């Protein structure tokens, strides 16, 4: 009788242990499947509030302090410290001025972008698409000038940060005395984080990204300051006032952006035996 009780008790205990083990196992699996989805949704929600806030403003200005890696030939990394003043008015006006390890002022008016460098007293101009997002895409793809801030702020719909494959988490951290939600995302190409205040305007205070597939896996940290959602601007804010002493210089495109089209263009030229007007005459402003 005693033995039967022992057997029953131990059987129950064993089954309980086994079921508990199975239960724990399933619970871990559920965590790895369900929790990331929930936390990603939460992170996306906070990010969407930030984007909505920025997009609902008629114009926006802010400053950044950027510490950015630039991969160099041979595999080494150049560390750049850049401060940047940015003003934009959606959908087609953008101005920024970069100082520090870069000397570049850029004016985009919906038709073209003019670059100016004051130390060298030069400027250049490129034709630009009609929206900020398209222009940001173009200057990165064609001219090697990435603007991750535009991607972060939702101005660049095809950027590498906003990715449907993102998985995200939300943590809390205090930055400069302000409690922030830290949204941490990762996708195939980039791990990135953004610090957004938990209360008040959901405007980013800090951003960090590691580009995993880029040569040298460069990282970039950007701190945001002086957000202004109603800056005093006019259309002149986005028009370049080029000093007479400044020399116009070409803006060079990346070969990868040109060569495939070059082939197509040459085929077309060969077929058409073009008699187009001399561009120096046709295109002078």
């Amino acid at each position, binding site marked *: 009788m005693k033995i039967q009780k022992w057997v029953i008790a131990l059987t129950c205990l064993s089954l309980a242990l086994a079921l508990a083990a199975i239960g724990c*196992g399933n619970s871990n699996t559920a965590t790895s499947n369900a929790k990331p989805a929930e936390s990603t949704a939460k992170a996306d929600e906070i990010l969407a509030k930030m984007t909505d806030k920025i997009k609902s403003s008629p114009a926006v200005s802010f400053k950044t302090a950027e510490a950015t890696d630039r991969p160099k030939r041979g595999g080494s990394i150049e560390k750049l410290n850049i401060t940047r003043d940015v003003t934009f008015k959606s959908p087609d006006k953008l101005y920024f001025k970069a100082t520090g390890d870069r000397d570049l002022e850029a004016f985009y008016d919906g038709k073209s972008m003019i670059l100016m460098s004051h130390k060298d007293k030069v400027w250049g101009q490129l034709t630009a698409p009609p929206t900020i997002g398209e222009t940001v895409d173009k200057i990165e793809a064609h001219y090697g000038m990435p603007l991750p801030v535009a991607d972060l702020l939702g101005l660049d719909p095809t950027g590498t940060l906003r990715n449907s494959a993102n998985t995200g988490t939300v943590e809390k951290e205090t930055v400069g005395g302000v409690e922030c939600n830290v949204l941490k995302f990762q996708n195939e190409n980039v791990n990135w984080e953004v610090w957004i205040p938990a209360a008040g305007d959901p405007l980013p205070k800090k951003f960090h990204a590691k580009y995993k597939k880029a040569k040298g896996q460069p990282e970039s940290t950007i701190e945001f300051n002086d957000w202004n959602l109603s800056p005093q601007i006019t259309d002149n804010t986005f028009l370049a006032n080029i000093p007479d002493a400044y020399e116009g*210089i070409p803006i060079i495109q990346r*070969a990868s952006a040109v060569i495939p089209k070059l082939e197509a263009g040459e085929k077309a030229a060969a077929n058409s035996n073009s008699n187009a007007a001399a561009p120096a005459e046709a295109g002078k402003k």
Partner: protein
Amino acid sequence: MIRNKTKILYCLSALVIAIWMVVGSPLGDVSAQRQRSSASRSTTTRSTTRSTSGSVQHSTATRTTTTHHTTATTTAGYHHGSTAYHGGTYHGGTTVHHGEEGYAAVGPRGAVVAGEEGAAAVTRRGVVVAGEEGYAAAGRYGGVVVGETYESHDAWRTAAAVTTGIAIGTMLAHPPTGYTTTVYSGTTYYVMGTTYYRRVYVSGVVHYQVVARPF
């Protein structure tokens, strides 16, 4: 009695292990997932080759790369009066250099960049600005040159492994040491020996691009 209890314990332990093995360890799945995810790394293959036979430098490479140019803040290089020459792949009547880190530029003397609609982006001083449509003019109004960027003349010489000349289209982050300047048709040229450089923007940074003698 004790022996019976021990047998029962062994049996139950075996039962637990058996159930565990049938169900499987969820931890094993997680680590497997981690291994799978870390294995998906792509590679980029550089295929630039150079030869220095005669006075022509040929350069070919893949066109699918998206690597960025390099810039530098270190010392400028030296130049020993070598002669600039045209080089590169002959491309439907157009001299074209293209490399992994190459950039396209308008040809010598600011030759022409025309848009698909026939509109050229020309600055007020007649300097041509390379735009998206630059390819359209290639072979018609002037050459499109795709060069590579280097920190300095020394860096170029080391990487290119040539000593006779620097190809048109090549871009340096710094002008060669000991240069002089001359202005022709509103463009400032940086001259060292018989090599002429002019300033261009590469990734928003001023570089010095080798060009043909402008006059």
